[in-house]
């Protein structure tokens, strides 16, 4: 309990992080209650096309086909968060387990895993994601898979570094001497002690994943049956000279969410590495 409140005090010292948390909370609420506030499908053409913001029945205006932009943003939040969280989860699973093995076992295993990781790191992230989604035809699953596949290498490197340094500590040596199995040592001893940098980079990774998903949808590689912010910007960019609001509001949603997640990441970093934070200030 004490540590938990200490964590919050450290976190709250970073005003930006608190702001970020507030925005993300709003986005989460939007995602949770979009179905209640906007029961109609966001694809439904509910109003006249090209209505500017503050029009009757369309707070943020309507798009080229008369779809409600506010509904699109609320439902898009669901898609963005879903993709962000799930793909980060998958990336964590791949990255941390590979990194842990590399760092813990060292030697040939380490070499093999690191060369494999480098293979992915040499290919530009976004290009690989585009190719993967294009090959497997755009759908939520293929997008999540593509984002996870391009996102895990940095996590693997991070986890490897942590494991490498912790592996030679006394408590690990002690665990080895007492005859604990490798798996127990990795999961029970080292992993909990290397979590803080991983959590920080995972929070940043959610932001990157949301950006990646938006970029894919912007290029028309989104799931054609799911409303998403990137899709909204992409579809509206052609009429930006006639109707700014169609791309502005979803663009703002992406900006705020990604910014907030980055701020949260920073706040977490401060809270989890208090020494680092004090030095920085």
């Amino acid at each position, binding site marked *: 309990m004490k540590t938990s409140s200490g964590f919050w005090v450290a976190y709250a010292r970073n005003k930006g992080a608190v702001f970020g948390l507030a925005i993300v909370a709003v986005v989460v609420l939007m995602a949770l209650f979009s179905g209640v506030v906007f029961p109609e*499908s966001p*694809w439904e053409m509910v109003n006249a096309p090209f209505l500017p913001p503050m029009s009757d029945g369309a707070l943020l205006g309507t798009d*080229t086909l008369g779809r409600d932009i506010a509904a699109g943003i609320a439902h898009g939040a669901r898609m963005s968060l879903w993709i962000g969280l799930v793909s980060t989860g998958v990336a964590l699973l791949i990255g941390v387990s590979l990194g842990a093995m590399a760092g813990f076992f060292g030697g040939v295993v380490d070499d093999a895993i690191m060369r494999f990781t480098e293979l992915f790191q040499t290919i530009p992230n976004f290009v690989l994601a585009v190719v993967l989604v*294009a090959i497997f035809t755009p759908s939520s699953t293929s997008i999540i898979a593509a984002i996870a596949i391009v996102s895990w290498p940095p996590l693997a490197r991070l986890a490897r570094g942590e494991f490498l340094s912790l592996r030679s500590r006394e408590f690990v040596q002690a665990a080895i001497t007492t005859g604990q199995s490798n798996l127990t040592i990795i999961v029970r001893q080292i992993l909990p002690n290397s979590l803080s940098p991983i959590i920080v980079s995972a929070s940043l990774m959610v932001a990157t994943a949301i950006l990646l998903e938006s970029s894919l949808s912007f290029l028309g590689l989104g799931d*054609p*049956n799911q409303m998403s912010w990137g899709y909204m910007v992409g*579809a509206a960019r*052609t009429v930006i000279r006639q109707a700014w609001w169609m791309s502005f509001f979803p663009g703002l949603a992406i900006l705020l969410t990604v910014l907030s997640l980055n701020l949260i990441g920073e706040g977490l970093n401060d809270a989890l590495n208090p020494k680092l934070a004090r030095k920085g200030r």
Partner: protein
Amino acid sequence: MSFISYRFRHLAAASLLALAVPALSPSVPSFVSPALAADTPARGGTMNIIVQPEPPMLQLGLNQQGPTQTVAGKIYQGLLTYDEKLDPLPSLAKSWTVSEDGLTYTFKLHENVKWHDGKPFTSKDVIFSTTKFLPEVHSRARANFARCESITAPDDNTVVFKLKEPFPAFIRAFEVASAPIIPAHLYEGTDYRNNPANATPIGTGPFKLKEWVKGSYIHLVRNEDYYKPGLPYLDNIYFRVIPDAASRALALESGQVDQSQYNDIEPFDVARLKEVKSLNFTTKGYEFIAPVSWLEINHRVKPLDDKRFRQAIMYAIDREFIRDKIWFGLGKVASGPFNSSTKHFDSSIVPYAKNVDKAKALLDEMGLKPDAKGVRATVKLMPMPYGETWQRLGEYLKQSLKQVGINVVLESTDVAGWVQRVSNWDYEITTNFTYQYGDPALGVSRTYVSDNIRKGVMFSNTMGYSNPKVDELFTAAAKENDAAKRQAMYSEVQKILVDDVPVVWLLEMQFPTFVSKKFNNVITTGVGVNESYDSVYLSKP
């Protein structure tokens, strides 16, 4: 990109200098009627035209993609061209007669016509093109000229086509892209596709290829030996390659280019450019190709095989909305299989209007009752991957079909995948459009007759639609010499098709053409921007 635009700016600056004087002097007030203001055409001037995408080659016999036609239509010529009503006009042929029985077509050719390399053009070139060259490399021409029993040349300036059986549409088979005349002296006895002459096209047209800087521009210059005295008027035509849609609109707006055609300008930019004072806007000049768009439906999949289901789709969608909101007003709601600008269109056919109740009633009649979620049936729609307008259409269709209980799952694809899947019948519903080439026997029947159900062939009867009565009427009408009888058959076939709904017709598509007001006589025929431009002239300052 930046390299191209840099280069382009240089050239544009040069041509801008040349035009600086006319641009500064007061222009003719726009309210003066053209007849009064019309100046006598004079020689000179340079026209800049957008070409997009860049054509792969300019040998029109070997390649008939849209951009190739627009450029090569100035270099090559056919025997005939066609006015807005699709009646024939002279081109390389100065006159023609069709025998009473409809079997013999005799063309008198212009005399003193020279190829761009100075060699004389004669009936031998026509014989070579129509019996050897085109049948080998041009599928549409092959089908048309295969109907000939013999093609002969009694003298240097006469060509006689003798048909095996009457085929009244034959008179519309001589447009420049349908049957370009190719120089026999360069191609006879060679491997046509690998002939080095393909890189330097030699035609009889009013303009010759001077230079082609790949990725930048194609420069045509006046053919001084053109057979029409005093023509052409223009000195140069530059075709500018501008890959980016926004840059194209900007180039047109700023006067760097004088003309755009087909899909150069995106529908959403059209309204804005219509307001630009220096530009004329028209949708004319596409009568010969007369595109019609539709939902292509695979009749091999249930419940799409039931005509009531297809009728329900027809009733469920609002095609005026599609035209006004998705195509920004470009196009006409199609009443049926024939484009209203083509021959034999029956104007008595009433287009389906949106009627949700009727659609639901038809589905009820089929026994498709809505389940707990209101879904009666689920179908897959794969929008044509031709840009976002088609994507918007897919989204619109999904929503409007949902209103009647048809759940649509959208599928994504790329161009190669789309062609592959549609031509191999591996789809449920897709969007598509085809050209009609002036006559139902040339461009319409191919979509609906059952002997054109050919796996692996795009733009054939990929739906698998088969109705013996339709087959019979199309075959008989194509051979019928009597115009009234032919019309009766075509009217009947239109009625049957409209009731059967083998495809769900959407729009008679219109393409926007913008032409600078400085140029006159630009869009004058049903062949439009693919014309020779021999009488286009620049207004005097």
